[in-house]
C-alpha cells in the first residue's frame, strides 16, 4: 500500500467515530424536518436547506479537525518521523476531508430525497430538488470553506476554534477584497471580467488556501511539526492580504478624494462658468467599473491665471433642476456645491457657495448643514411669468402644473411625458407653452387653452439652448433648430444620419452647436456658432464629457492628448490650462 493510501486509511480509522455519528445526526435532523414541517412545499424546501446546511457543517467540521487535535497532542511530531514526505501527509489529509465532506453531503442528499421518495409525495420531492437547484453554483464554495478551515486548523488547536477562525478569516478577506478590487480598477487593472465568473473565483480561492496550507504544513514539518512555524507561515499571508486590502482601501479612498487634476485617470465631467467667463467650477471623477462611480471632486479654476482651488473632495455641484445642466453664476447668484467630505457619514454636509467677487475675482463661502435641511434647487430656463411645479405621486402618474397669474394648466402622465422644460417648455412669451406629446410639437396658449400642432414626427425631448432662446428637436430624419418664442426654424435642418447634434453649454445667451459624426468619435468635433456663423473643428478626448463655451474667451474641453485647453472662438489660439 502506498504511503498516501496508508495515511488516508489511518485518518479514516482515527475518525471513525465522527464518520459514524455525522450521518446519524444528519438522519435525525432530516427526519425531524420531515416530521415537523407541514405541507409538501414547506417540507421540501426545508429539506433542501437542511441538506445544504448539513453539508456545509460537516465539511467545516472535518476540515477544521484535520490538524487541530493532532497538533495539540503532538501527533504531528510523531508523523514527522515516518519515512514519508510532508506533502504526502498534507495531501492525504486533503483527500480525507474531501472524501468525508462529499460522503456526508451525498448521504444527506440521498437520505433526504429518499425520505421524500419513500414517505413523502411527488410534490415535496420536487420542492426539495427545486430548492437545491439555486445552491448548485455555490458548490465550489464548499472547497473554499474546507481549504480555509484546514489552514485555520494548522494555527489553532481545537476544531471549534478552527471553524470560527476560518469563517472570520473568510469574512475579513471578503471585506478587504472589495476595496482592493476597486483600488486595482483605479490603478488601471480591471479584474471585473475575471471576477464575473463566480465558479472560477471560488475555485481560485480554494486553490489559494490549499496552496497556503500546504506551504505552512511543509514548513512546520521541517521543524518536527512545529506549531509556531506552521502557524506563522499560515497566518502571515492572510494578515498580509488583509493589511494590503486595508491599505488598498485607504489608497482607494485617498485617490478618490485627494486627487490632482493632472492625474491621467481622472475624467472631467462638466463645468459651470461664471457669467464673466473668468472662472469655472470643474467636476472631475474617476471611472470605475459598474455603477460604483465615486462622487467627483470639485475645483475652482481661474481661466486667466490658471490657479486652481480644490473646493470639495466628494462634491455634488447643484445643477439646473430640470435639465441637469450646470448653472452659470455671478455675484448675486452663487453656484452651490454640496461637499460630502472625507467620510461617508452623510448626516452632515458642507454647503459651498461660489460667486463673483472678492480678491481673486471669486468668493467662496462654506457652511455646514444637515442633510435634512434641504436645498432649494434652481433653474434658469423657466421664464419669470411661469410658475412650474412638478408633483411626484407614488403609485400613480406625475403631475406638472404651470401657473400664469390666475391661470393654471395641469399635465398628468408618466414622469418622462410631463417633464418640465424638456417636455413642457414655457416659452419667453408669457402664457405660451411648447409641449411634446404623442410625437407632435404643440403650441399651447394658456390665454384660451388653444393647441396648435407645429411639428409632427417628433421623437425627442426639447433640448433648449443655454439661455432657452432656441430649441433643438429631433425627428426621425433630422435635427431641427427652432426659435423658442415662435417655434419656427432658425436654420436648415441637420440630417440625423450625418451627425449627432447638441448644444454647447455656456454661461450666456450664445447658441453654439456641436456636431459629431455617428460612430466615428475619433473624428473632430465641429462647432457651429449660430450667432456668428463661425465654424471650428476641435479634436476632443471623448472620455471626458466636458465641453463649455466660456463667454468670449473661447471653448474649454479636453484635447485628444488629454490636456485641458481653452481654444479661442475662431480657433486661432489655444492655451493649456491643465497639462496632463
Amino acid at each position, binding site marked *: *500500500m502506498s*504511503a498516501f493510501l*496508508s495515511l488516508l486509511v*489511518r485518518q479514516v*480509522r*482515527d475518525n471513525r467515530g465522527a464518520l459514524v455519528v455525522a450521518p446519524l445526526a444528519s438522519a435525525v435532523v432530516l427526519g425531524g424536518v420531515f416530521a415537523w414541517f407541514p405541507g409538501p412545499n414547506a417540507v421540501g424546501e426545508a429539506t433542501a436547506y437542511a441538506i445544504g446546511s448539513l453539508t456545509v457543517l460537516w465539511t467545516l467540521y472535518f476540515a477544521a479537525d484535520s490538524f487541530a487535535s493532532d497538533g495539540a*497532542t*503532538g*501527533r504531528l*511530531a*510523531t508523523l*514527522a*518521523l*515516518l*519515512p*514519508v*514526505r510532508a506533502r504526502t501527509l498534507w495531501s492525504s489529509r486533503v483527500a480525507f476531508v474531501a472524501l468525508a465532506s462529499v460522503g456526508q453531503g451525498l448521504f444527506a442528499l440521498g437520505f433526504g430525497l429518499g425520505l421524500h421518495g419513500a414517505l413523502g409525495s411527488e410534490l415535496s420531492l420536487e420542492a426539495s430538488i427545486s430548492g437545491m437547484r439555486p445552491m448548485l453554483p455555490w458548490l465550489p464554495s464548499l472547497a473554499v470553506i474546507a481549504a480555509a478551515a484546514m489552514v485555520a486548523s494548522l494555527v489553532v488547536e481545537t476544531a471549534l476554534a478552527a471553524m470560527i477562525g476560518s469563517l472570520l478569516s473568510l469574512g475579513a478577506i471578503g471585506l478587504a477584497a472589495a476595496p482592493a478590487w476597486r483600488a486595482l480598477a483605479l490603478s488601471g487593472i480591471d479584474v471585473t471580467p475575471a471576477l464575473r465568473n463566480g465558479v472560477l473565483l471560488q475555485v481560485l480561492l480554494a486553490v489559494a488556501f490549499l496552496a497556503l496550507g500546504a506551504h505552512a504544513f511543509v514548513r512546520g514539518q*521541517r*521543524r*518536527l511539526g512545529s506549531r509556531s512555524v506552521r502557524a506563522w507561515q499560515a497566518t502571515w499571508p492572510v494578515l498580509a492580504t488583509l493589511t494590503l486590502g486595508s491599505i488598498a482601501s485607504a489608497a482607494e479612498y485617498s485617490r478618490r478624494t485627494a486627487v490632482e487634476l493632472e492625474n491621467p485617470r481622472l475624467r472631467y465631467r462638466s463645468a459651470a462658468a461664471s457669467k464673466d467667463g473668468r472662472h469655472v467650477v470643474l467636476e472631475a471623477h474617476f471611472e470605475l467599473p459598474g455603477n460604483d462611480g465615486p462622487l467627483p471632486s470639485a475645483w475652482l479654476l481661474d481661466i486667466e491665471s490658471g490657479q486652481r482651488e480644490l473646493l470639495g473632495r466628494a462634491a455634488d455641484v447643484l445643477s439646473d433642476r430640470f435639465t441637469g445642466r450646470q448653472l452659470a453664476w455671478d455675484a448675486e447668484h452663487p453656484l452651490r456645491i454640496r461637499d460630502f467630505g472625507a467620510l461617508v457619514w452623510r448626516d452632515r454636509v458642507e454647503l459651498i457657495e461660489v460667486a463673483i467677487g472678492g480678491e481673486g475675482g471669486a468668493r467662496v463661502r462654506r457652511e455646514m448643514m444637515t442633510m435634512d435641511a434641504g436645498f432649494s434647487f434652481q433653474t434658469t430656463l423657466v421664464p419669470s411669468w411661469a410658475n412650474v411645479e412638478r408633483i411626484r405621486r407614488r403609485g400613480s402618474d406625475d403631475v406638472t402644473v404651470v401657473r400664469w397669474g390666475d391661470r393654471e394648466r395641469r399635465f398628468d402622465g408618466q414622469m418622462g411625458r410631463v417633464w418640465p422644460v424638456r417636455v413642457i417648455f414655457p416659452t419667453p412669451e408669457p402664457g405660451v407653452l411648447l409641449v411634446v406629446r404623442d410625437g407632435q410639437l404643440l403650441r399651447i396658449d394658456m390665454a384660451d387653452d388653444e393647441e396648435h400642432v407645429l411639428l409632427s414626427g417628433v421623437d425627442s425631448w426639447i433640448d433648449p439652448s443655454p439661455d432657452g432662446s432656441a430649441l433643438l428637436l429631433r425627428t426621425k430624419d433630422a435635427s431641427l433648430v427652432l426659435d423658442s418664442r415662435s417655434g419656427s426654424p432658425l436654420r436648415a435642418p441637420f440630417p440625423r444620419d450625418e451627425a449627432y447634434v447638441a448644444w454647447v453649454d455656456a454661461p450666456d445667451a450664445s447658441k453654439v452647436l456641436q456636431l459629431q459624426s455617428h460612430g466615428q468619435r475619433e473624428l473632430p468635433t465641429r462647432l457651429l456658432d449660430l450667432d456668428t456663423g463661425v465654424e471650428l473643428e476641435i479634436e476632443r478626448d471623448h472620455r471626458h464629457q466636458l465641453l463649455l463655451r466660456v463667454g468670449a474667451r473661447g471653448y474649454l474641453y479636453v484635447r485628444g492628448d488629454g490636456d485641458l485647453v481653452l481654444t479661442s472662438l475662431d480657433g486661432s489660439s489655444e492655451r493649456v490650462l491643465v497639462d496632463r
Partner: protein
Amino acid sequence: MKHETSVISARNLGVKFGRKHVLDGLDLDLPQGSVTALVGGNGAGKSTLLRVLVGALVPDRGSARVLGLDPTREGERVRERVGYVADRLEIQPRTRGREWLEFVGSFRRTWDPAEAQRLAELLQLELDTRFGEMSKGTRAKLALVAALAHRPELLVLDEPFSGLDVETRLAVTQGILGHLRDDGRSVLLVSHSTNDVERVADRVLVLEQGRIVRGGELESFAASASGGLDLESALLRGKLEEVMS
C-alpha cells in the same frame, strides 16, 4: 578527523530556536558498527541533533550525511533506512499496538512482521492494548519494536530506557543492541543512565552548549578524564573541572 566508514558525519551544524543556539557549529563522525552514546546535560542539544540526523528538523546551517544521504533533502529515505526512537511517541489513544505497527510497517519496504512479533515477545509487549491504556514503559517498548522491525542499518535512540523495568533494560541493552553491534550495524543513543551507557556503548560523545566537547572510546575516555574511574565519575569530574575553571 573524518572516518573513512562513517555512517554519520556532520559539519558545522547549527540550529536556533528563537535566539537560542541549540546546536552551534557541531562536528560529528560516527564509525560504522559502533555503539555511540551521546551524553550531556538538559538542553545540551542531544535530542535536537538526533532530529536533525533523521531529517525531522532542518538545520539553520551546516550539513550532515547519514548513510550517505542528506537528511535535509532526503529525509524520508533516511528515515526508511534508520530506526529512530523519539523521546516521545504520540498516537491516537484508541489505536492498538498491533495496528500502529502495521501502519508503520506499511511505509517500510524491509518491514518484517515476524521480526516485529519476535521483538514484541522478547520485550513482553502486549500488542492488543490500546495506546491510551499503555504505561510509559509499554509505549517505549512499542516505539522500540517499530524502530527495529525493519532491520535498520542505523539505530538512533533518544532515551530508549526511560520507563523500562530492569529486565527489559537488560533485554534491550544486552539482547537487542548487542545483537545489532555484532551484526555490524551502528547505534547512536542518548541516555542519562551512565550504567546503561557503560553496558552497551563503545564510544562516548559529550555534548555541551550545542557542541561536542569531548569524546572517544569508552575505556580510554573514562581513563583520560577521570584517572581510572567509571564513566559517571569521569563525566562528573569533567563537569566539576569545567565549573572550577
